[in-house]
């Protein structure tokens, strides 16, 4: 169980990205975070594994206070939390396989990393993960040679080899076309349902939210303004919509 308590983030520039955000995520949930660009979705996700240091508040995961961890403790927690990025964030000049193997960095002896060495079982695990996302034959290509959808699948494979209990996905499909978006979301759903991995994912498209979410929270200007289930989104009122997306927002389709 993940508990976010009174989370606040103020950047050095003075921007208040998150303001007193509290919510709880049960194990095995598929939580989707919605909100406009700049509403604090990325900051929230990055605060959970402290890629961004929260200014105030606590994040407690399975009774571990992540916000109070020292560096070593933080690394141990991070390796159990996968992260999938909008821009994939692969190391373009390295082979696909190495990019996936990077997911094991939290587990291997750091000195081996000086020589880019990974134990054989890690290599097998990485190849397995690549096969699961259907990219086994690309293992030795450079990451830069892949298309956008392939890159995101490598990103998911990298998160997979971490053997994560939780997966954070920051707009994982925003850079992809609708068909690819569904296939990537499909991978995430399978992980959620087959392996019971808790997923926190920020999204823009409400149809995807309706399709995949078990729970939804909405952020606006760094505040939590909406909480509901995937079912609730389908029955969302215009007021609720405007609460999340602002007074000028128009609902299209529905």
């Amino acid at each position, binding site marked *: 169980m993940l508990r976010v308590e009174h989370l606040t983030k103020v950047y050095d520039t003075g921007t208040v990205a998150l303001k007193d955000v509290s919510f709880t995520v049960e194990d095995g949930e598929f939580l989707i975070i919605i909100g406009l660009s700049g509403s604090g979705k990325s900051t929230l996700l*990055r605060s959970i*594994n402290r*890629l961004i240091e929260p200014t105030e508040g606590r994040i407690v995961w399975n009774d571990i206070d992540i916000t*109070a961890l*020292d*560096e070593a403790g933080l*690394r*141990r*927690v*991070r*390796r*159990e*939390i*996968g*992260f999938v*990025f909008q*821009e*994939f*964030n*692969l*190391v*373009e*000049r*390295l082979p696909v396989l*190495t990019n996936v193997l*990077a*997911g*094991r*960095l*939290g*587990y291997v002896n*750091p000195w081996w*990393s*000086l020589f*880019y060495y990974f134990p054989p079982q890690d290599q097998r695990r990485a190849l397995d993960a690549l096969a699961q996302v259907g990219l086994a034959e690309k293992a030795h290509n450079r990451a830069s040679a892949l298309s956008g959808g392939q890159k995101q699948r490598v*990103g998911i494979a*990298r998160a997979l080899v*971490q053997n994560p209990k939780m997966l*954070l996905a920051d707009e994982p499909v925003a850079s992809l076309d609708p068909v690819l978006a569904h296939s990537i979301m499909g991978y995430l759903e399978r992980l959620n349902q087959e392996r019971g991995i808790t997923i926190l994912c920020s999204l823009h498209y409400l149809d995807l939210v309706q399709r995949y979410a078990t729970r939804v929270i909405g952020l606006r200007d760094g505040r939590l303004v909406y909480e509901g289930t995937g079912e609730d989104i389908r029955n969302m009122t215009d007021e609720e919509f405007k609460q999340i997306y602002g007074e000028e927002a128009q609902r299209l389709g529905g």
Partner: protein
Amino acid sequence: MNAKRAFYAFLSLLVPGLGQMAAGAVARGIYILLGTATLWGLTVFTAAQRARFPEQVYGLSFAVLTRLFLAALVTLAVLRLVYEAVARRLFPTDDEFARRVANVLFVVVAVVVFSLSGPMMLQWAVPPGASRSLYTTVLLIMAVVLAGIWWWAVLDAWALAEAKARAEPSPSWNGFIALVLVGTLVLGTRIVGIDLPKAIREYKETGRILGDIVWPWRAAFDYEATELRATALVQAPCPEGETGPPVNEPKEGEPWVVVTPTCGDLSVRDTKGKLQYGTLLHIRGGGFVPGKVVKIKWENPIGNEFTPRGLGPTEIEVGPDGTFESELYIPDVVIPSFAEGPQIHKLHAVQPGALRFTGKLSREMKLALQAMLESIMIGLMATFAGMLFAIPMSFLAARNLTHSLRTSPQGLVGGVFGLVLGGALGWLLARQVAAWLGGLDKAPVTVALVGFVLVLGGAVLGFRLLGAALDRLSRRLPGWANAAIRYGGFALIGAALGWPLGLGYAHGILGIAWDPAEVAAAAPDFARLGAGLGALAWLYLAYRWGDQGVVPIGHWIYTATRTVLNVVRSIEPLIWGLVGVIWVGLGPFAGFIALTIHTIAALGKLYSEAIESIHPGPIEAIQSTGANRLQTIMFAVLPQVLPHFTAFSLYRWDINVRMSTVIGLVGGGGIGFLLIQWIRQVQYEHAGLAVWLIAITVSTLDFVSATIRKRIV
């Protein structure tokens, strides 16, 4: 209102800029005053410098400039009045273009007037006793410029007051800037000693030398002289009864020369310098090439060959049958006083032939090639050594890597104590190891390396371990304990930093003026004072930060590294070359040291900028897998920066080879050493060889490195 303006204008007439200051434009006034004063001082200085004993003519120069200045001031005022009267009538005042034309005309008229009246003004201004050559046109021009500035300041004060009254923007600086520029340029030609006539007069000699440098390739090879030569022996002096060496016989098929007699007396120069002829020799030769000249040369007993002058013909044309005949007095060879008895001299008949190309490189060319190789190697080695140090430094000088390094004030206390403790432990350990290895003299490199690694490693390890430990501990400690650690630790740190600063102030600043004994006596007090002040300053910091404070050590490390890199980089390699020569003596090693130091700084900066420009995304991604700092660098940073590093290193190699060709000028080895030597020996052909080799090497390398860089990036 007009009275006020006039007052400001008058103030600026007394002291330029004063009116502006009074009118409220203080900065403007100061600029005008400083500009005028500087120009005035420079003019006096420049004029006086031309005298052999300048300190005696400063006053005189000042007086002459003042008189010229007053004359120019009055002349300008008169001209301006005439201009106002005439221009008002000729040009309508509201026409901008006409006003500009009038202004240009005014300048032209002023130049004409001053050129005509200049000699008179100089005549009047320079006192009769003073050397006229010291005070020439330059001084006159400067006086006119200064007078122009003066009047400009007056008019500007007036216009400024007007603009201020109407709340308009201040009038433009253009006139002032133009005048100062003209004055500076005129002074510049004198100080630099720009002398166009000289440059034009001397072009012929330059052309000859340049020719040697532009095409020196004859000097790159050895030539064999294919001369015909025949030799006869002559004994001198000739005591009674001696006949000297046997007379030569004419030979068939090769050059020969027969001299009779083969024994005689030397010519002698008497005390008045008049030549008393010695024995007249009859010379007959054959077997030479017909129609060409044979030269007669004399070789004294110790082997010096020379052409005798005024003792008979020394260049004789060979007849159609290959023979010649001539006569020569035995020359006046100076015989050392200790040489006793008769000596054997040689007479050569020499017919110079064509120089034969041997195809072998000349000694100088071989030297130049060798030195060129040395230069390339200096550049290569310095690049590699520089890379070795620049890579770790560049990580410390990259903002995006260091800015996340933060700690609590308590962590800082722990870190600093760990640093000192670890360093000290490393030092003790290093001393043990050094003693075991047999001391610095026995194994200098090993001992220095072990010492460096142990002390640095100990310091870094101590910093990290104790810093992290205290940082973690402080989260569990009660507030009073944290405060105790913070205040106590900071006071100690401040004192430790202030102590050497106090000592440095005593020795470095007071030591300039004070007697050394006094300094030594007072130094401990200053050290204590420094420590006290440092402790106070850091106690204030401890108070400011509080126990929740964030200490940006990463930013400190970044700033410190950047500062060191910038300072080192701003010192030219040639200067580092001097340091290297003092350190390890003349030769390529000194050049290597110089280039390495500069390379570390230059590459450190370039590398760190490459690191700063990488995508932050992969770093985030690698960090979120639980990777530590080293792994993040290996997986997210290095792959991104490696191509840039390679490109920059190649570029630097290119620069280093270019620099290594001149590092020899200060004794740093390589081809520059030969180049400067040959230039000083006026061997321009050989210098030309060096220049050519440098040009070929540099442009080749430039091409190669550019090609490789294009492929990588």
